[in-house]
């Protein structure tokens, strides 16, 4: 289980400091799919960077399976190995082939041997990337590149996936397809997922729990448990889908309205 307890982040700048996150309390259960939704600039991405220890919190702490890391405490390597980070853009290295990009975490985490190479090849085939595995990322479509980015984050068998608006740059149809593929992967592997998005429909479709955020400072204004009968194309017809979407819309809308007044 993963918990963020009273996490705040203040970015120190030359002219003025920016309080990006204030008093964030969040819980992600084992195998749970959690979405964080909110307008641009509310600190959604900062949250998963704090979980992944890319950014240190200014105060508060993160607890993963009983291990605590905070402002000055280094995170153990084995905990990082349990996480996979997926970026907003595919972020593939252009000097490596798709296969080499996907194998990169194995190199970094020191996972050598044929077993791991075979596992990478298995994921490449499963993701439909076999035909372009030995090409360079420049020749891939945006969708295929992002697919490779997802596979790369999973190659070292993490049990926590941190996804920073991974399908935000894709067209509507490709994004929908990728969402359903992600749900299949999640069901199969039972990983915990923290998925950042500003797309309310996407959050309702994917998440079991949604944290709704507001800006200035970035904070959680509401939490929503999502209980859809099914998570497939028929979900869009589900009355509760609409109900959840409007609840999130209203929560974000009310805050924006308050700010305007």
């Amino acid at each position, binding site marked *: 289980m993963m918990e963020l307890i009273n996490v705040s982040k203040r970015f120190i700048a030359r002219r003025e400091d920016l309080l990006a996150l204030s008093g964030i309390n969040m819980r992600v259960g084992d195998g749970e799919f959690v979405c964080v939704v909110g307008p641009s600039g509310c600190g959604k991405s900062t949250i998963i960077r704090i979980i*992944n220890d890319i950014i240190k919190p200014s105060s508060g702490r993160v607890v993963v399976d009983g291990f605590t890391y905070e402002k000055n405490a280094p995170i153990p390597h084995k905990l990082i190995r349990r996480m996979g980070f997926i970026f907003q853009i595919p*972020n593939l290295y252009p000097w490596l082939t798709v296969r080499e990009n996907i194998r990169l975490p194995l190199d*970094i985490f020191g996972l050598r041997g044929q077993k791991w190479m075979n596992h990478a090849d298995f994921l490449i085939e499963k993701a439909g990337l076999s035909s372009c595995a030995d090409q360079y990322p420049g020749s891939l479509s945006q969708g295929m590149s992002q697919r490779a980015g997802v596979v790369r984050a999973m190659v070292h068998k993490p049990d926590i996936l941190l996804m920073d608006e991974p399908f935000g740059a894709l067209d509507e149809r490709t994004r929908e397809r990728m969402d359903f593929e992600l749900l299949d992967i999640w069901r199969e592997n039972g990983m915990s997922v923290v998925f950042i998005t500003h797309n309310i429909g996407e959050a309702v479709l994917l998440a079991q729990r949604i944290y709704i955020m507001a800006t200035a400072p970035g904070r959680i204004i509401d939490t929503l448990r999502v209980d859809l009968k099914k998570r497939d194309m028929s979900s869009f017809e589900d009355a509760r889908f609409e109900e959840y979407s409007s609840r999130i819309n209203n929560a974000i809308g009310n805050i924006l309205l308050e700010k305007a007044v």
Partner: protein
Amino acid sequence: MEKTADEARTRLYLRDAFRHIAAQAALPVIALALWHVSVTWFDVPEWQIPSPPAIIKAMGADFRAILPHLITTYGNVLVGFTMAAAIGIALAIAIYFNASVGIAVTPFINLMCIMPLITLVPLLMLWLGFGSKAKLVAVVIQSFPIINLNALSAFAGVNPLRLELMESMKATKYQKMRCCILPDSLPGIFTGVKLAAVLALTAEVTSEITGGNAGLGARIIQYTQYMKMPQAFACVFYIAAFGLIFYQSLSFIERKLTKNY
């Protein structure tokens, strides 16, 4: 059908290559033609300005006399440049691993960039003699700072998102350098390397002109003193040809190494 497409592609490639070469050769050919017409028309004596055919003839006829000097100049430039590239890049990597090294050596590197080489050459010759040693040191002093500064600036300008991928896996400094920083910096490093190629040749010829009997620079001085202008110009042409081929070869290697960027 496929063969026809291949043939069409080859034809297009050849046509583009021919256009490229023709466009690049046009200006030098026109310049040489104008030069030839001018010296013939105005009846300029050969000891003042020889005509291009006289120079080309001297390049062939005096080749055996020029050859040892040609080997000295080309050899010193290649050896000195290779040493400069190795020192410049190795020092940049050392500075990346230990900032104190950077604080200590950067003022000296900046000084070497600013200091006109011509002021150092007589001193180098006093200490190291008129042989190749002083010239090699001059080439290294002149060309390694520019490689070092460009490498450092390329390291500092690495794409932050690519670096963040390394951070997300808690890669070690060595892994970051090997997998991300060095490959990402390759275009920047090559900017310095190509500039250094020009500076290395300038340093070598300047040193040869300043003192000693070996090298094309020294031959230019001797031929000029004996009014053997076609031979002096032949040496200039050999220097120019080497500089051009050297620079183009480095550009070619750069294009090959960074073709997927």
